[in-house]
């Protein structure tokens, strides 16, 4: 059996468009491997949504995501943290954000996921603009 060893504890990727399905193996030594995926909802404020347009401000966006990921890894004693976020247009129903956290036990991994996402929305330069479906077809 081959075993992939992650070369980095923290990875950050900005990806054009929707995130493709992906099965990443957990880090060596993990007792928990949490993968959270954020999906573009089909409606926003009661209006049918076609897509969200995500905008980043590079290189600041990647730098702030990496800082936050590293701070979260240290604060919660994680084994690894992998962040993927879309830029550009992502249709309703598609994945625009993926957070994968490897930890020795589930408790710190779950806490870290909550912390990371809350802080990301407050401190990382990433914006979304709704693209609504046409009202009459």
């Amino acid at each position: 059996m081959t075993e992939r060893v992650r070369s980095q504890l923290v990875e950050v990727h900005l990806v054009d468009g929707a995130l493709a399905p992906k099965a990443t193996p957990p880090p060596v030594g993990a007792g928990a491997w949490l993968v959270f995926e954020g999906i573009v909802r089909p409606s926003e404020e009661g209006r049918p949504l076609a897509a969200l347009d995500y905008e980043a401000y590079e290189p600041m966006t990647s730098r702030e995501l990496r800082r936050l990921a590293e701070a979260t890894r240290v604060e919660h004693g994680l084994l690894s943290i992998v962040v993927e976020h879309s830029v550009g247009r992502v249709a309703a129903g598609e994945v625009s954000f993926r957070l994968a956290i490897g930890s020795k036990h589930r408790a710190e991994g779950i806490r870290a996921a909550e912390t990371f996402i809350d802080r990301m929305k407050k401190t990382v330069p990433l914006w979304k603009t709704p693209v609504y479906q046409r009202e009459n077809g």
Partner: protein
Amino acid sequence: MRVSVLLFGPQATLAGARSVDVDVAAESPTANDILAALREASPALTGSLAMSRLAVNHEFAAPDRPIGPGDEVALIGMVSGG
């Protein structure tokens, strides 16, 4: 001094532009001076400025951070985070 401030996402939509030029009287303006000038230059942004910070050369700027010629200034509004 005239400073061009980059806008993104919903704030760019509100202002109807990707950047706003502001004139500041101070010889050595600070990030706070730029935010105050933005309120004057683009009233459409006023409501969202309380949830915004300035970035200078891709780093968040403290309110007293001086702004010089050639600095890249961006309005980072946490109004619709990812």
